[in-house]
């Protein structure tokens, strides 16, 4: 049993052992091991040339990672908190995401951008943002979200091994939750961009990712007490999106609720609603519901529990789709 944080650490370690072009870089990732200790001990074992404490400049981190990738390295960048990725937005959106297309497919940039994401840890402002919709809308990026230690370990290895830029989200409030990590010899892991049915069910499909996966599972279990059979799908990858898994489920259940922490307006849930509605229109018994953060800047810590989708708000939405 490893925590999600430890599972990432062991995944990164393996990635570095497997390929000596893999570098870790970011603010305080070296001696400190990162503010969440995801890279704990790696500088000690791999040296300062491979685990790099950068200057305090996010655009600089991503911009130099691009240059390192052009030189043949495979940088894994840590952005210290979700709210601090914006200074790097230009380098991510105009350079990292577009380089391959700009060169007609010639130039690969195998850069992973790790972002501790979301709320639920009682943090101050700018430390609890869910900004995946920005990156999901950006062609040329892969955007994935781990939600369990097992996925954290295997998905980070897949992300690092791949040849495209990946925005790799790590839900902060799950860092310290423990789980099994599938051993090396258990066969190939699930593909990086496949959604996972974490709980099968027949009546309603909950579509979610990241920090709210566990909440959805808890909601499904609570609903089961009342005889409702809820399927929970962890999307895992939001770009590309595994529409086949979604479509199969919702055609079967006829009802869906999308759950994420980010504000709903023009959030990633809207894309899921649009996909479900267009692909499953004639199977839908009710409009797809969205449960998300309210359309406010993330609120102060003392009220974040009310802001975040919780079990009750999810079940409330389930009631609505079932009532329709």
């Amino acid at each position, binding site marked *: 049993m490893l925590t999600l944080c430890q599972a990432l650490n062991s995944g990164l370690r393996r990635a570095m052992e497997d390929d000596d072009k893999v570098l870790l870089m970011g*603010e305080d990732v070296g*001696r400190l091991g990162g503010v969440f200790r995801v890279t704990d001990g790696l500088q000690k074992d791999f040296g300062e040339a491979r685990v790099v*404490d950068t*200057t305090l400049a996010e655009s600089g981190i991503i911009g130099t990672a691009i240059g390192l990738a052009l030189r043949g390295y495979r940088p894994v960048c840590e952005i210290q908190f979700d709210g601090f990725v*914006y200074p790097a937005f230009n380098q991510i959106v105009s350079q990292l995401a577009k380089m391959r297309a700009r060169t007609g497919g010639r130039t690969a940039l195998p850069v992973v951008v790790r972002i501790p994401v979301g709320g639920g840890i009682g943090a101050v402002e*700018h430390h609890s943002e869910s900004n995946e919709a920005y990156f999901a809308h950006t062609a040329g990026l892969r955007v994935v979200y781990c939600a369990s230690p097992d996925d954290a370990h295997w998905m980070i290895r897949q992300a690092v091994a791949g040849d495209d830029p990946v925005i790799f989200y790590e839900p902060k409030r799950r860092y310290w939750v423990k789980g099994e990590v599938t051993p090396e010899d258990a066969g190939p892991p699930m593909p990086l961009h496949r959604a996972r049915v974490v709980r099968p069910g027949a009546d309603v499909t909950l579509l979610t990712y990241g920090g709210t996966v566990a909440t959805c599972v808890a909601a499904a279990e609570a609903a089961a007490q009342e005889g409702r059979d809820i399927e929970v799908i962890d999307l895992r990858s939001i770009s590309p999106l595994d529409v086949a898994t979604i479509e199969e489920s919702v055609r079967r259940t006829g009802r869906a609720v999308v759950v994420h922490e980010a504000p709903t307006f023009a959030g990633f849930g809207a894309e899921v609603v649009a996909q479900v509605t267009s692909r499953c229109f004639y199977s839908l018994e009710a409009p797809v519901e969205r449960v998300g953060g309210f359309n406010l800047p993330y609120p*102060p810590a003392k*009220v974040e529990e009310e802001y975040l989708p919780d079990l009750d708000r999810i079940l409330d939405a389930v009631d609505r789709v079932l009532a329709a």
Partner: protein
Amino acid sequence: MTTVDLADPPVTNPFTGTTDLPRAAEGWTQLVTPDGRLHPDVDVDRDALGRLTRDLYRGMRLARRLDDEAFALQRQGELGLWLQCRGQEAAQVGSVAAVRADDYVFPSYREHAAALWRGIGPADLLRQWRGVAHSGWDPEPYSFHIYTLVLAAQLLHATGYALGVQRDGSDTVVVTYFGDGAASEGDASEAMNIAAVNAAPMVFFCQNNQWAISTPTASQTRTPIHRRGAGFGLRSEWVDGNDVLAVYAVTSAVTEHARAGAGPAIVEATTYRMGGHSTSDDPTRYRTDDELEAWRARDPLARVEALMRAEGWSDETFLGQIQAEADELADRTRRECLALTAPDLADAFATVLSDVPQLLREERDAFVAYRGSFLD
């Protein structure tokens, strides 16, 4: 009710008109040695200097007490987070005391001593760290902007504000605080450049406290940060940031320079972050006890105490008075902290824009109704 309004009575500046401040071997301006001796070249009115020193000391001592109390409150679970300013009191109090009360300040997030000097009270200082708000005070009455947590962003706000001051033909000066780490952000450089090109009336005050979380200044910059400012065309000063009189003198000089329309300045104050980065940090992972001890020996408060003792500027009564004031401030800090209660999330919907558009209204109403359903 309380005596924390530090800026009253206003301090008189014994350094007005002084040029050529003495430098220490390190190259920085220093008026008082670490063991508390006044540099022989400091040739100003001794009475005024004594009064100033006592005022500054009071500000530093009260700030440290508030800082300690807040730290304790965090350890007791009453605050979610606290970022100590311990060790940086001289840099903060020396600089903020040197500017006019209506000179506008854009702090970073650790400027508790400066804020307290400006009259911002404990409740306002703790609010954000208790998780009941995102900012502490109304900037207007204090001419002191809210804290900015996104590093270096405030340097551009300060620069824009200074451009506005310039347009208004006002003689206000704008002071902005930032750290050695924040200096690496592109925004910091853009701000210095824009200020220099426009001869904006402002002071970039860098507290180089040797660390940005676990990253030492040497990994952040090849040259001293004030040299970088000079490269952009700022007037550049380097000061012993643990010497409150030196900080005061240097800051008042560059502020008057900026006020006279002669352009912006950077002041690099070399100081030390005696605590961890924050209450979430574990500094033992990256710095040595020896380093900490060496800087403890340079504690900015101890230096002023030694100076006052040597010069006969303090006595038991004075120290006792401050002690009492500090005790009262600590009590008040605790009391006001515990009284800070969570806001109503429903109110937040009216704070996003100047009105509440339909979708937001629908969302708020649904939230209120939903929440109400649990009360049945």
